[in-house]
């Protein structure tokens, strides 16, 4: 029995096709054997700091110097920016913060000094530190009004687009708002008017009540498999408190998010055989923007993260623009992950 489901916010149509029950083995990740051997040099590893540009931020042990060993999380700008037109971009130094005006910002967050330690495996305080780092960078970058939007995403595994297996995330700030975010903002605005309130809050409330597609929840966050999931085991992580910007998280919420991510990423790793995945932050544009463009964004929009595992045997696919087939119903995915 197939079901046609529409995603309220994106307007996408998805055919949830569950022709036959899946065996757990079908949910294996499109994993690859570690491509890098111990013989391979990794520029992100501790000890190789000279191979990266000077750091713009780092959490390090007392007494250690920038661009040296002794860090637990480290942020560096892109060493070979693609948008290099050969023009001299302005560099500004503010203490240990370095920023570049002009084209844009592209930074890499090196999540651990250890090549083999995944985000799901690090101790909770470390994961919290990574989130704090991201938060700190977003705030710093958004001080420049020209950066209308800050994208944060993580690719793990070759199949998800990661060129290097050392755990890392990327932060890209652009002077324009990406198209898909604009579409989400428009949608959120429209739906706010229609439903007289934040549509995301409404969805969260409904899902928490039904508990059919909830994968995890605690005091501050919930993780759900979206009603109209495009891809098998697609997940969304929502703060329960309405907020449009990740940077607004309280320290308690940050702790909670760390626990949430650790739980969900561990589950994915364990139950789906360590699949490659993409993790993307969806948040509102730079709050220091001229309010004219998106006056209601802090009301309409609700920040969240999307997790998309890349699986080998079952895959969703796109038939035409905005039309998908997903062979794993989100209810089944949630059930499977809950164990």
């Amino acid at each position, binding site marked *: 029995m197939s079901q046609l489901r529409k995603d309220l916010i994106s307007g996408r149509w998805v055919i949830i096709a569950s022709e036959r029950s899946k065996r757990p083995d079908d949910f294996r990740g499109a994993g690859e054997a570690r491509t890098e051997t111990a013989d391979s*040099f990794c520029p992100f590893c*501790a*000890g190789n700091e000279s*191979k*990266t540009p000077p750091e713009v931020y780092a959490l390090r042990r007392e007494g250690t110097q920038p661009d040296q*060993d002794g860090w637990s999380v480290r942020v560096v700008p892109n060493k*070979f920016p693609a948008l290099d037109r050969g023009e001299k971009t302005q560099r500004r130094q503010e203490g240990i913060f370095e920023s570049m005006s002009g084209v844009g910002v592209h930074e*890499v967050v090196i999540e651990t000094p250890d090549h083999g330690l995944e985000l799901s495996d690090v101790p909770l305080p470390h994961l919290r530190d990574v989130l704090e780092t991201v938060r700190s960078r977003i705030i710093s970058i958004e001080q420049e009004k020209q950066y209308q939007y800050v994208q944060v995403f993580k690719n793990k595994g070759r199949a998800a687009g990661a*060129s*290097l297996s050392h755990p890392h995330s990327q932060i890209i700030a652009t002077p324009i708002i990406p198209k898909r975010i604009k579409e989400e903002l428009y949608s959120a605005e429209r739906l706010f008017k229609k439903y007289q309130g934040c549509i995301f809050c409404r969805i969260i409330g409904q899902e928490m009540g039904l508990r059919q597609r909830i994968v995890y929840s605690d005091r501050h966050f919930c993780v759900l498999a979206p009603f109209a999931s495009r891809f098998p085991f697609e997940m969304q992580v929502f703060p329960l408190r309405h907020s449009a910007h990740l940077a607004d998280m309280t320290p308690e919420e940050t702790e909670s998010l760390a626990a949430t991510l650790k739980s969900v990423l561990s589950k994915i790793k364990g139950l789906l055989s360590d699949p490659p995945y993409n993790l993307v932050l969806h948040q509102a544009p730079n709050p220091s923007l001229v309010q004219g463009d998106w006056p209601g964004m802090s009301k309409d929009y609700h920040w969240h993260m999307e997790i998309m595992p890349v699986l080998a045997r079952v895959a969703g696919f796109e038939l035409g623009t905005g039309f998908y087939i997903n062979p794993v119903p989100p209810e089944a995915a949630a059930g499977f992950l809950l164990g």
Partner: protein
Amino acid sequence: MKKILVVEDEKALSLLYKEELTEEGYKVTAVLDAEAALEALAKERFDLIITDIRMPGKNGIDLVTRVLSRQPDIPIIINTAYQSYKNDFKTWAADAYIVKSSSLEELKAKIKELIEKPHVPTQKRPD
């Protein structure tokens, strides 16, 4: 005299680089692929490596990662026709990424900058 290893499979370019860099006062060894490069590196010390990415056999990025795990201090310049490999963070193992153009100015300037620089020794990875 500083020694440069040029790894480039296009014969015309290999010839050009050898001639031009010899003119600049370097001792140049030119090889046509990664295997030959590794052989050359096993035999003598070089002060700088310039390598292409797309080559028959092992590609330049693999070469760089291999070289650095044994000789972590050697300066490396990636010299390629492809802009797109900038998205591959493995290229950070090199010290510069130059996109081939009709002028050798950028390449020559980078060589000068890197070959004279005192090396910051990369520490061995803690085991």
